[in-house]
């Protein structure tokens, strides 16, 4: 994460923001609109120049902050994010698709053969397809808002980090500590699989709070200890094969997952 801070620039001006959607369901962009109660407060802090979801005005030449949703799945998308990186002082990725390749990433294996299996003639709208990848596999990313979909206020928090700077560290610890803070029962005690063991913390373990195991939508922590997690699965009577399979949902293109096997 860079130390770029809009407010620290020589001539602070209202930061110009663009919001761009790549391969995704657009749900994370919707989550921005879902910050309803505070939406005007948030918009008041920025100069929103481009947002596909809200307006068909074309993307401007100049802006300060690029917010990117979705995975990179075409050469066109790759060119788009490279251009965004060149023009923006700050790049923020939002959602699992942009940060882990997410749902498009699930199709990474055999991705290039698939269109021919579906279509007799692959439509031009598909673009020049490339294997799905997260945005940071193509360009440097300054800030991330993880989870599927993003939490509205989490997005605002990260946007403000970019606008004003922050003394908050970006943790890479995994989730189980959050469950202990919440004092929820561990699924492993019930021989049930949960991906919290290796998934990057930060959401407050909200699925577990709702009685569901973590499905790993925040992606593998760079400090995930896969060999130890597999041993833990064995010790608690949870299938290691199920564990590895479940990880593919949000981490299929993560190099850590591929090299550890």
């Amino acid at each position: 994460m860079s130390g770029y801070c809009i407010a620290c620039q020589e001539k602070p001006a209202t930061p110009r923001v663009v919001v761009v959607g790549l391969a995704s369901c657009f749900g994370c962009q919707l989550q921005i609109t879902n910050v309803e109660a505070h939406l005007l407060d948030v918009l008041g802090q920025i100069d929103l120049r481009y947002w596909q979801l809200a307006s068909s005005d074309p993307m401007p030449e100049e802006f300060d902050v690029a917010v990117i949703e979705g995975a990179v799945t075409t050469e066109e998308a790759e060119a788009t994010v490279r251009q965004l990186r060149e023009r923006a002082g700050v790049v923020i990725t939002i959602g699992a698709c942009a940060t882990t390749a997410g749902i498009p990433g699930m199709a990474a294996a055999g991705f290039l053969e698939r269109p021919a299996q579906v279509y007799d003639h692959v439509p031009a709208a598909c673009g020049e397809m490339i294997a799905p990848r997260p945005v940071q596999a193509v360009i440097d990313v300054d800030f991330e808002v993880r989870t599927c979909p993003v939490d509205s206020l989490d997005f605002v928090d990260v946007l403000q980090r970019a606008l004003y700077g922050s003394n908050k560290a970006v943790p890479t610890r995994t989730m189980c500590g959050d469950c202990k803070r919440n004092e929820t029962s561990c699924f492993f005690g019930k021989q049930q699989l949960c991906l919290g063991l290796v998934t990057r913390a930060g959401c407050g373990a909200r699925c577990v709070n709702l009685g569901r195991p973590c499905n790993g939508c925040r992606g593998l922590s760079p400090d995930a200890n896969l060999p130890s997690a597999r041993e833990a699965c064995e010790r608690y009577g949870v299938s290691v094969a199920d564990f590895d399979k479940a990880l593919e949902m949000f981490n299929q293109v993560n190099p850590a997952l591929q090299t550890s096997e």
Partner: protein
Amino acid sequence: MLYRVIDASELPSLVSAFMETYEVVAPVKRDRSYVFEAVESFDDIELGYDTTVSSPKKYFLPPTETLFPFDARDNEVAAFAAEITPRVIFGAHACDINALNRLDLVFRDGRYPDPYYVARRKATLIVGVSCTPDATCFCNLWGADEARFGYDLFLQDLGDKYLVSISSVEAANILEAACNPRVATDEDRIEFRHATRRRQDAFNGEIPDIQDVAMLMDAFHKDPYWEELGGRCLACTACSAVCPTCFCFDIQDTLDPDGKTGRRERTWDSCTSPQFAQVAGGHNFRADGRNRVRHRMYHKLNGFLANHDRMLCVGCGRCVTACKANINPIEVLRFFERKGADDAE
């Protein structure tokens, strides 16, 4: 110390009397475990609980607390008041009371007392209750199986009655008003002795008693064992979240959505968190599990002893259950037991 005896049937009226002035928090059943939480009635309380997921530490050092609100526009602190709820922690085990006594050394008795902690500690009464150790308990190894101070009342279960140790006037007055405390008889004292013996005999004899562990850790600081133990750390920080004596924190500023006002917050941190020892410029003094776990064990079983003459570990056993990688002080004791056996050969 003043001792009195009350009948077990008098406990509900004691709890009701506390509820008139205080929020009462006590162990309650949640899913497959127990947790301390505010109760509305004595019937919700599970005094026979084995342990709780997290400890009563959370009532003195909340997982996240606001230190003060601020106004970012003029860079001013907006207020200082902390939220303090007068509270009774009802049913704390001896290990947790001993843990609180250790937190006192850090946050209350040092050169710079922590006003937030001290205010909560002052506004809280502690009612301890005796317990029977389970397989993961090793408080006895560190002399933490008895609470000698740090509580207001301590209830020793003697079947249909409790021997009550009374150590504060405030709690004594409430006990006096709510129950009919009577002077202990010789029979009560003999039952108390038997109960204590039963507890002492119930500890898991499989857990090695290595009283010189602190010295051994100094001697074996570079042993390959620390890689074996720390190398399997999952970096989840469950250990310190459940630990009744882990007190490290981070301080962060959180802006409100309008960007104009915000809060300075203190939140639990952990030395097993990968960023814990990372400093400006990016250097990380403990960049891997080996160094982080070893550091944590040294603080629990070595460093605090050197500074405060007692272990920072109280042997509550919570981390034994919480850590999915089987990293805990018992494993360290087992390592030194093996070392001793190797040397003897």
